Structures are given as structure tokens and as C-alpha cells.
């Protein structure tokens, strides 16, 4: 079936072959890595700019207004104009800040979010690193970013920043658990931690459909917990505007602020990619049993369109939450995690294990 899909394996192999023809193996690897990194960064920046524009338009329409309309057609270059503005602005460091940590924090946050992008498979044959513990790697790496956030809050020497960072710390540490637990439910059913194998296991149906009850519950928990981990409304306590002005990045300006902003959107992308990979079958097309004609048409849609379509569906969900809900309070946030999400997800892992053992798949 996948023969109709555009397969990037040949393309990547051709690059690798050409490079090793002209260069020594060490240099070939270096050039390959640099090419991959550049490609990744370009992809992320383009996607993030798209997301910013989408977010502003979605927010606008949800709020009975038009969103950006001035720069370009229907404000389409607004995000690029904003990026340019941020690039040109001065990065102000507070007088009594810890200058080294203050400058280092945005890099740590941004680097960790880029690191987490590595094991994802964007399309058949398009994957930077097929590591056999892909899911574990992503959850592990993305939780490092809390160190950058704490660093930013501490180094700013601002009480609002410090409060924001502390909230963020408590929040990310506790919600990591639910994210992990909800992923484990699906991993138990697919039987592998490798991203590629999880995708391949969904060739005959996505886990959200095949895994029925445990998969749906774990998808809901995953969406809630990852929204919390992303510090986005209704869990945006770390930067709660009405309480802490801007939380941990109150003192950041210019490009340093832009890095926090970029990493926030990249993290959102990562969470959505994870959801798309684990629950919606990655780049696997939608098949409906018994409808061969329909399935054949689905095959003609390239894999990366499937993948990013699913990613943007999840991104839209997260944006939808943000522009609808009020913010939760800090003690309620922790209570939600420890009293609701965690017990439910533990029970859910048990159900998933039972389903996996008896193979009660749909």
C-alpha cells in the first residue's frame, strides 16, 4: 500500500552517497549533520511563523474580530514583521541581574526544544535519527527546559520572574508524570518505544481508533498534561499576565525574548507531533475498512501532508483551549494533577495492559 507514498529514503541515501564520494567519512558525517540541522531549523522557523499567524487569526475570529489585517494580504506577513522588529530591538539586561545566567537561559530553553525534534519521523524515510527509545528520549529531553526557565527566573533578579519560575518548576515536574503515563498506555499496546515502529504499528488503524477506550482516555490526559507542560492557557501560570505581568520572561526583551517565544511554539509543535505520532498514526493515511476506492485516494496524499495535517489539528486544539478557558489557580493545578490525572492515567495503563495482553483491538 505504501508504495504510492513519496518515499524520502532514496533521496537521503543519495545525499549520503554523494557526500561520501567526495569527502572522507568523518567530514561527510559532519556536513550531513550540518545540512540536517539547517533543514530542521528552517522547517521549525517556517512552521512557527505559520503557527503565530494561525494563532492570531484563530484568536481573532474566536473573539469576533479579524486579527492582523495590515501587513501583507490579510496580515499574512505580520509574523515576519514582528520577528524583524524583535531582531532589531535592544536586549536589555537588568542592572542587578546575574548576567551570565541571564544570557544563558534562553539558549538552554531553545536548545532543549530543538533537541527533542530529532527522533521524529516526518514522512516515510525522513527521519534524522531512528533511535529505539524515541518516545523516552523526547520526554526526557523536553523536561530539561525547566532548568532554563528556572535560570531565567532566578537570574532576572525580579520577584515576579522568580514566582513565575517557581510555579513553572512545580508545574512541569508534576505534569511530566501524566504525560509519561499517558504515552505508556499506547506504548504498552504498540510494544515499542521507537517512533518508526509505533508509526508502522498503525498501518492498519490509528491507535486512537484501534486502542479504543484506553487510547481515548490517554489522548485526553496527554492533551491536558502537555498543555500544562507547555505553560499555555488555561495552565499559563508561569507567565500569568494578570498575576505576574509576564512571569519568568518579564525582564527579557528583543531577541532573547524571541528565543523564549520560539521555544514555546517549538514545544507546542513537539507536543503536537508526539500526539500525532502516537495517537493519529504519524504519516499513515486514514483508511476506512471496506472502502477501497476511498483508501486508494488517501494513498495519493503524501505522508508529510498527513503528518502536518494531524500536527496542526492538535495545535488547533491547544490554541482553542487557550482562547476559551480561564486560568486555573496554582493549588487547583496541582490538585488536578495529583488527584485526577495521575490516578486516572495509572488505571488507564492497567486497562491498556489488559487490552494489549488479550489483544482486544478493534
Amino acid at each position, binding site marked *: 500500500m505504501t508504495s504510492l507514498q513519496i518515499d524520502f529514503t532514496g533521496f537521503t541515501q543519495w545525499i549520503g552517497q554523494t557526500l561520501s564520494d567526495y569527502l572522507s567519512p568523518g567530514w561527510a558525517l559532519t556536513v550531513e549533520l550540518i545540512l540536517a540541522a539547517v533543514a530542521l531549523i528552517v522547517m521549525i522557523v517556517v512552521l512557527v511563523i505559520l503557527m503565530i499567524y494561525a494563532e492570531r487569526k484563530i484568536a481573532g475570529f474566536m*473573539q*469576533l*474580530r479579524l486579527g492582523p489585517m495590515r501587513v501583507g494580504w490579510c496580515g499574512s506577513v505580520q509574523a515576519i514583521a514582528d520577528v524583524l522588529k524583535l531582531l532589531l530591538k535592544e536586549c536589555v539586561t537588568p542592572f542587578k541581574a546575574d548576567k551570565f545566567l541571564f544570557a544563558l537561559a534562553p539558549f538552554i530553553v531553545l536548545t532543549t526544544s530543538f533537541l527533542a525534534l530529532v527522533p521524529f519521523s516526518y514522512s516515510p524515510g525522513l527521519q534524522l535519527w531512528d533511535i529505539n527509545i524515541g518516545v523516552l528520549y523526547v520526554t526526557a529531553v523536553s523536561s530539561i527546559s525547566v532548568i532554563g526557565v528556572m535560570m531565567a527566573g532566578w537570574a532576572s533578579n525580579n520577584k515576579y520572574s522568580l514566582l513565575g519560575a517557581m510555579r513553572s518548576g512545580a508545574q512541569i515536574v508534576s505534569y511530566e508524570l501524566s504525560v509519561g503515563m499517558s504515552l505508556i498506555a499506547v506504548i504498552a499496546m504498540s510494544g515499542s518505544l521507537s517512533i518508526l515502529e509505533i508509526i508502522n504499528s498503525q498501518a492498519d488503524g490509528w491507535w486512537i481508533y484501534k486502542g479504543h477506550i484506553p487510547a481515548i482516555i490517554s489522548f485526553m490526559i496527554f492533551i491536558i498534561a502537555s498543555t500544562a507542560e507547555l505553560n499555555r492557557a488555561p495552565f499559563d501560570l508561569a507567565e500569568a499576565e494578570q498575576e505576574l505581568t509576564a512571569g519568568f520572561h518579564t525582564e527579557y526583551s528583543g531577541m532573547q525574548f524571541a528565543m523564549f517565544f520560539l521555544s514555546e511554539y517549538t514545544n507546542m509543535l513537539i507536543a503536537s507531533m508526539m500526539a500525532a505520532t502516537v495517537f493519529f498514526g504519524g504519516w499513515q493515511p486514514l483508511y476506512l475498512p471496506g472502502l477501497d476506492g476511498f483508501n486508494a485516494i488517501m494513498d495519493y496524499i503524501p505522508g508529510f501532508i498527513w503528518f502536518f495535517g494531524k500536527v496542526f489539528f492538535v495545535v488547533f486544539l491547544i490554541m482553542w483551549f487557550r482562547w476559551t478557558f480561564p486560568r486555573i489557580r496554582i493549588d487547583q493545578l496541582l490538585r488536578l494533577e495529583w488527584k485526577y490525572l495521575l490516578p486516572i492515567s495509572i488505571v488507564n495503563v492497567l486497562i491498556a495492559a489488559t487490552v494489549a495482553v488479550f489483544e482486544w483491538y478493534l
Partner: protein
Amino acid sequence: MNKCINYIYSIGAAMGSLGKGMFRTFSSMVHPARILTQQYPENRETTLYIPERFEAELHLIEDENGELKCTACTLCQTACPNDTIQIKVEKVTTPEGKSKRVLSEYIYDLGRCTFCGQCVDSCNFGALEMTNHFENSEYDKRKLVKLLNERHLPANRKEEQI
């Protein structure tokens, strides 16, 4: 058991209430006809609606002969709470030989005006009105001090200006 049912019921009710809100924002998003905002500078000629009574700038009314109705009685100057209006009066002798008070300068400081409308209210001659011309911002606040009778200066003042 009851507790367990309540627990599940509370989760369901919570989800339901969140779902209602999400439905509301989603339905707004897919109904662009409900949009409230106006594209202001572009709609100046089309949909922009400024009610006729809107108070934006003080204006002296002319009578049918093209002369100002203002008699320089300074009632508006006294009625103004912010010293926005300054009237300079001069005495001229009419051809008949009577001395007459004539409006020399009607100085209106838009920057101090709070648009309370008490000048218009106090005028016994119907010589004042508030116009709709609201785009009055300037980079220099001195430009907000306006001479309202610029086109109707008395004869001797006209010569001074030239």
C-alpha cells in the same frame, strides 16, 4: 459507591461545561458575519458612523449673510470650566457714531477641552456648535490652540495679519 458515581459525574459535568465554552468560541470562529470590529482608516468613506451630535470640535456658526452669529458676550468663556475659550473684544465705532463691541479673536484651546458642551449650552445666540470633525491629533500641542474666527477677522485685524 455513591462517592465513585459522584466522582465520575463531576468529571463529566466539568467536561460538559468546558465543551459548551469551546462550542461557543468555535461557532464564533466559523461565523465571520458576527465580527464586530471595523477597519477604521479604510472605512472612513463607507461604514464609519459618527452621530451628528458627536462633540469633537467647537465651531462658530455663520448666519445667512456669512457673518458670525457670535456677539462676543463672553458667556461661553465664563461657562467653560477649563479656561478653554479666550475671547478678545475690541470696540469699534460704527458709521452712525456708536461704539460697538466686536469680536476680535476667538481662541479655542482644543487640548484643554473636555467636550462637556457647556459653552454651547450657555450661548444665548445659538452661535456655537460642536462639529463632528474628530481627527484632530497633532504632533505639536501648540497647533491645538485654534483661532476660530480666522475667516471673519475684523477689518483692522485682517491688515495686521497681512
